[in-house]
């Protein structure tokens, strides 16, 4: 599946065409490692030098190439977003094996966002550290919308869950409108965030973020 969508170019303020696709291959993982990681490392050095270590994203060490084996399994679905000839975001979903934790839907299956990453040049925090403007938006929202749609396609009615990194909690809770349950001691004490079918619908019909 490849879908043409529009995202915004931060510099010009204009809409630009992008491609959302689910036929992710190992080449995309290699591209993320080669293109994204050096920018993240450079931003890390700058943030460390200015005493802002707490702003360093905890996903800085992720290696997408570790996930190659999972490309072959039905339990996982990957999405990528490409614009301007470059990969702008990647997401890995697990469509089985995770259950809802919100009291009103506890125990029901959901789609779990296992990994989601935006290219570093689209992250305001990192670009500020490097003295540059971010490039495109909204990458995270486009990917979360795709995850909700996958949940609906799988018959899970939009139910979605994830463990949020501390620097992303505001995005999931306020920009997406997910509900928080608790910090999960089994997963580095990360905050568990979840969509009910109603919350997912509000997010997907709420216009662009």
């Amino acid at each position, binding site marked *: *599946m490849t879908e043409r969508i529009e995202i915004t170019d931060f510099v010009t303020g204009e809409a630009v065409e992008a491609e959302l696709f689910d036929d992710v291959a190992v080449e995309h993982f290699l591209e993320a490692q080669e293109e994204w990681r050096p920018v993240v490392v450079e931003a890390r050095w700058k943030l460390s030098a200015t005493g802002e270590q707490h702003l360093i994203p905890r996903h800085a060490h992720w290696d997408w190439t570790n996930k190659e084996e999972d490309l*072959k*399994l*039905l*339990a996982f679905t990957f999405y990528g977003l490409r614009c301007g000839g470059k990969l702008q975001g990647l997401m890995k979903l697990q*469509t*089985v*094996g995770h259950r809802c934790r919100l009291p009103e*839907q506890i*125990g*029901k*299956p959901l789609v779990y966002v296992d990994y989601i990453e935006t290219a570093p040049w689209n992250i305001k925090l990192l670009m500020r550290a490097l003295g540059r403007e971010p490039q495109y938006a909204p990458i995270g929202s486009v990917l979360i919308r795709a995850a909700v749609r996958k949940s609906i*396609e*799988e*018959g*899970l*009615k939009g139910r979605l869950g994830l463990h949020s990194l501390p620097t992303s909690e505001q995005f999931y809770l306020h920009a997406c409108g997910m509900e928080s349950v608790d910090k999960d001691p089994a997963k580095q004490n990360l905050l568990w965030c979840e969509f009910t079918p109603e919350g997912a619908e509000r997010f997907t019909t709420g216009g662009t973020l």
Partner: protein
Amino acid sequence: MNPKRTMTLNLTEQEMRVLDEISAQKDLSKTAVLRQALRLYQLIDVRLSRGEKLFFEDEQKKEKAELMVV
């Protein structure tokens, strides 16, 4: 969305009853239950074939049992 193919599935009364129960309990269609089962079966099978093991653990009783899948 990927194109889908249709098949007829023959189940016993008991199997159909269980499918109905899971479907109601989990708020899923019967098709969605079976698709979830297929995803889970493949995931477990691949991980076991890589040499990994699957366990059920009862934290209260401090019991751990390996699940053998054929």
